[in-house]
């Protein structure tokens, strides 16, 4: 546990240093990315975005269908992606999801669906570290999606109106 935290804060420091020198020359800025250990869900919501950079719906669309990343399409059908084959049926269709949830609620669902739908849900937590036993080596200590990818997907989901 301690080791994991150390690894995490090293990555954290790296991101902070890197971005403050490149994107914000001369300014010392506070945490830019809220890490999976810090993020707090209350009443099914996460009010604060995970990153400072606003989500990009175009990128979010890619992550939604990418088999290697979100692979949301594996479980959720999405009429706006009818050009892509093979939409899953495990969860509800994403059509009109922007009318059912706010950004802060979607953030909570994506970060840790279990905190919103209950422990029984089959929807994975996309911003959690080693939630299950026996996580394969190459995924240990890692989240499925980065904070930025989560924000991108939220921005994309908010375009899904009926």
């Amino acid at each position: 546990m301690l080791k994991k935290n150390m690894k995490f804060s090293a990555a954290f420091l790296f991101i902070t240093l890197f971005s403050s020198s490149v994107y914000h020359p001369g300014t010392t800025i506070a945490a830019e990315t809220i890490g999976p250990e810090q993020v707090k869900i209350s009443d099914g919501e996460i009010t604060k975005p995970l990153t400072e950079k606003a989500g990009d719906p175009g990128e979010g669309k890619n992550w939604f269908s990418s088999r290697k990343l979100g692979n949301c399409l594996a479980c959720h059908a999405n009429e706006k992606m009818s050009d892509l084959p093979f939409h899953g049926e495990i969860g509800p269709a994403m059509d009109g999801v922007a009318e059912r949830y706010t950004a802060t609620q979607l953030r909570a669902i994506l970060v840790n669906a279990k905190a919103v739908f209950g422990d029984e849900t089959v929807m994975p937590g996309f911003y959690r570290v080693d939630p299950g036993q026996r996580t394969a080596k190459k995924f240990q200590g890692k989240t499925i999606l980065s904070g930025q990818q989560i924000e991108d997907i939220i921005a994309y989901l908010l375009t899904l109106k009926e």
Partner: protein
Amino acid sequence: MNFSAFNGRLATLYTTCAILISAGIVSLVSAPLFDHAKADDNLPADITTIKVKPSTADSPFKDLYSGWYFRAKETQNLQKDDFENPGFLWVEKGQELWSKVDGKAGKSCASCHQDAQKTMKGVGAQMPKWDEKAKRPLTLEQRINTCRQENMQADEWKWESDPMLSMTTFIRLQSRGMPVNIQSDGPMEAWVEKGKKLYYTRVGQLDLSCANCHENNYGKYIRADHLSQGHSNGFPTYRLKWQKLGSLHRRFKGCMTNIRATAYKRGSDEFVALEIYLAHRGKGLQVESPSVRN
């Protein structure tokens, strides 16, 4: 799917997002369940045992469906015709190996077991089977290797090797059409329980259990795959994706890798226990080996 648990989950959702309470959500959140009545319309008239009533008291299923049912027509037809079924190439090899002398004792399987059609009938349907000498259950692979080492003084065959797959398929074929019928009481009980525990344990970065897919969501599509109940009655199976025959433990490994978990090893006690539990929950389904899957 357990309906009361599902409704409980909905209730949590409602209280957390009070604003969203509307009748509309119910239909949106509850994705379609497997429709048993509709499924019956699609059952072929000539294969009545693709669907059977569960014979174990603890079965989570109303009906057991062979994995064959969930495959595309073309794949189903490949399995129905022994001349088209590519798995029969391994059956032929297995038949040759049956009477091939190997090892220092100068024996073949046939030296002791004679005509496989008679002596091996029903054996594959009872595997894994308790072995009094080893004081543990043996899978068909493990039983064959015991005979090779102790009775033939020959080298073990590797789990996923061509000769092993050929022999297990040849032996399982001698039980084709017979119901899966493993012992699950007595000394086997602890193994059934061990397998059951593994079956319901969530693993991997995706944090899913076997049951999450094969029990809670069978009959639905997960991307391009039509989820079955995940039974073992068709193994070894010829998978179009593998372009060859594969063992049940290879399939286990694939399912675990997909959810980003470290799979157990083929032949490990964990996979043997899972195999036992799968046979237990699939009791009554017909042995179909060699099956064809995509």
